[in-house]
């Protein structure tokens, strides 16, 4: 399994090589949601699904309209809802069913601007529904800057936490006889991480820090380090471990190594770093269904200055999607 390719967006169309049967992306208040779509040749996309969160502000409408128009008649909107995970799952499921064919299909998924929860649900559906002969490629556009223009100590992505819940499709097997081990893949949002810890009061706490060499930018590594330090300062009993922000298989190894160090615990993972590392968390749960993934909803996002798109993207496949074990 080769690590993700880090390539200029301008070369993405060449890298993809040929037609894509199904392209899935998510509209967002971030202009990053257009980066991949703009880099593709729309005539080579047989079907495009543009996911749109019903709960997002109307400023997202123009982005979704743009994305839908870019792929013209071959596109359809998939309504998601960040407050209603069942609605998100049902819509995604309906979309995937509508494009199912007997022949093997190629899927390209732009994971950049999905919420972590919607992405995890989508990944589970792809794992469950796709045929082994299908192929899925993921693409992720990093941000050159988050919380654009703010000083490092003032950077923020979201404020306020609504509900903390298990992610649909990843209930885990939380056994009443075992103690709990909370694994946090920390990112920019130390307060959100704090809430997880407060909510679960785990017996063992592992606080993942994005490995500096895997960060999508040195500036992000610095902010992540500062946020990580904040969490550690509050929870001195937490154990720090390094994980990859840009290679899902390395993320898997890091999480699994950490879990193995504390056997016999109920493992809960809160992925809060890049969407690439979130895929790593999903793969850990695919491999071990006793692992529960959890998610905290946010009340407010830094809509106007959330991110500035990078000019490069990461392109990769993962071995478990589609599931190789599934019979055709």
């Amino acid at each position: 399994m080769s690590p993700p390719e880090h390539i200029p967006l301008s070369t993405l169309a060449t890298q993809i090589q040929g037609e894509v049967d199904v392209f899935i992306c998510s509209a967002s208040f971030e202009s990053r949601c257009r980066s991949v779509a703009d880099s593709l040749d729309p005539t080579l996309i047989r079907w495009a699904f543009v996911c749109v969160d019903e709960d997002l502000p109307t400023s997202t409408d123009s982005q979704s309209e743009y994305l839908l128009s870019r792929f013209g008649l071959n596109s359809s909107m998939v309504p998601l809802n960040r407050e209603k995970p069942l609605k998100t799952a049902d819509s995604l499921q309906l979309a995937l069913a509508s494009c199912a064919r007997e022949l093997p299909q190629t899927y390209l998924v732009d994971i950049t601007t999905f919420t972590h929860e919607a992405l995890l649900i989508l990944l589970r559906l792809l794992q469950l529904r796709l045929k082994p002969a299908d192929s899925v490629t993921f693409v992720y556009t990093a941000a050159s800057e988050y919380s654009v223009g703010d000083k490092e100590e003032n950077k923020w992505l979201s404020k306020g936490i609504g509900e903390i819940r298990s992610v649909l499709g990843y209930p885990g097997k939380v056994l009443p006889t075992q103690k709990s081990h909370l694994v946090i893949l920390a990112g920019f949002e130390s307060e959100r991480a704090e809430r997880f810890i407060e909510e679960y009061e785990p017996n063992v706490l592992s606080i993942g820090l994005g490995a500096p060499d895997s960060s999508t930018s040195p500036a992000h590594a610095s902010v992540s380090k500062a946020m990580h330090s904040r969490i550690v300062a509050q929870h001195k009993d937490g154990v720090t471990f390094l994980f990859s922000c840009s290679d899902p298989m390395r993320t898997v190894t890091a999480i699994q190594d950490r879990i193995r160090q504390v056997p016999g615990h109920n493992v809960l993972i809160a992925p809060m770093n890049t969407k690439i590392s979130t895929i790593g968390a999903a793969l850990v749960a695919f491999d071990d269904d006793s692992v529960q993934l959890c998610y905290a909803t946010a009340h407010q996002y830094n809509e106007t200055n959330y991110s500035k798109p990078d000019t490069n993207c990461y392109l990769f496949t993962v071995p478990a999607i589609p599931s190789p074990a599934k019979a055709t």
Partner: protein
Amino acid sequence: MNQDAPETSNPFAVQTPEGISARDMESLFVNVFTDFYNIPREGHTFLHGPRGSGKSMMFRYLEPDCQCLALRKSVADLPFFAVYISIKNTDLKLTELMRLENKHANLILNEHFMVINIAVKFFSSLIKANMDDHEGTCAQAIRGYYADGFCKLLKRSGWQEKPPVLSPTATLNECFFVMREIFSEQHSAVLSYLRKLSFVDSPIPYPGPLCGYLDFLLPLIQQLKSHSFMPRGPIFLLLDDADNLNATQTSLLNTWVACRTQADVSLKISTQMQYKTYLTATGQTIDSPHDFSEIHISSVYTSRKNKYLDRVKEIVSRRLRMHKIDKTPQEFFPAYEKQEQAIREIGRQLRERWNSEGRGYRASDDAVRYARPDYIAGLQGPSKSGPTYKYAGFEQLVHISSGIIRYFLEPASMMYAEMRAIRTGPVEFIDPIVQDQVVRDQANAFLFSEFDRWSADEADDTEALNQTRKLRNLIKALGGTFHQILLSNASERRVFSIALSEDPDEDILDVFRLGVRYGYFHESSIGNKEGTGRTRLFVLSRRLAPVFILDPTSFAGYKFATNSVLREAMEKPKTFVGKIRRNGVEAAFDSPQLGLFQQEESE
């Protein structure tokens, strides 16, 4: 922690009670059940309190290992057998269960899930109790019960698989292990079924057994309870943090409460004051005291100040002793002596002048009432760089913690860490300057950063945003007003509370409720102005005393306010406090009118 805790570890570190050994519990736990007498008694009880108010610690102490040590008794001789059931956020509240909402199986499957979870924990408790059975008679009895009663109960609930056969030589704990394993496997089976629900819209037939409270859990517990190794008293199911149940599970728990099974099974339910509903699964309400008794920890300790002071004194003494620090709490947290001397001097002068200018019944009343406020008022010069009031000294710290032990221990832990950082050698006391600094930082964090944090959590719509804005304004207006009263020449200057002089409007009440939920106010009641009944009383948290420069040591004063006054405070706090400064407090608030028989204050 253990008995030989090293001197370097922090005596005030807050620990999760689940992880504390019975022996450490015996050393650390202060018996508070005289304050909360309903908890160790037969009967269903709700125990409400914010995080850190000691709920889990109480529950942990009720567990058999702690009780056996405390009472020097065997399990069979205990007055009850308590099963600790911690409910974490996603233990039972799985997103998959939302698939069942509004479907007929919702109640049945949720109840089965809860029952199985509790059954596993019940047998875990029996195993942990490690009951003495050297003659093997208990094991023999339980082996007999297993083959006869237990397996029949399983079968009646639809268990298809044949339960494993117990070895004829199985010990008591080996029997319990086998029984627990049966429920653990069923628990996994339920989770596997729920997993299948993730991505289906139509119902999937549930193939497994179904266990309810009345038809399964209750008889199971009753049958086990009848054995000689169990106490004769009730089984307590201690459900900790029941706010973490989903709405369906909450209504089911209420249905169990309504069942009046307390002689055999008493439900002790703790909440962080966000319990979802008091409706049962059939839509009836459960009420106190009819169906259960109810305890609000904050109210108990804010209304009985000496009791709380005594409790904290004992808790701190035990922690100091455990860390081999040979000091009393007062010695370890000394007051700022220069300040105390000055206050004593003012008190002396007040006593001297009492004959000519006295206001209280006794000279000492004037000294108690006015010496500290006069001292604080004397510091309020135009210069901001002058001396400030020092929030230091054990008793003052206890008052500031506002009836919640965590708010004493957490700052104390920070003070200890700070002392270790600035001094070499063992810490034998906390410098009053360090005490003051930590308490001030905590108070500011409570009003500003902490407020920002939770109000962002609340801000899911405009109305919620508006409420948090009003609450912040109200706190500022009341804090500012209470400070003005402290500086005034009023007969009672140590005011922390507002009583409602008329029925509160719903919007006003909602703002206060939000404040109570996040610990900025405590709610109580007091005799109304007319002396014909009682009215609501809201007490500002003493954790805020340093922000508004208030004297935290008093529990005395309150003012009556109308809806319109409170509404103004919520909308225009600066103008409100300005008016008080210019026109005096009586312009906005009424003082309590004492009737022929003075109402006993219940703040």
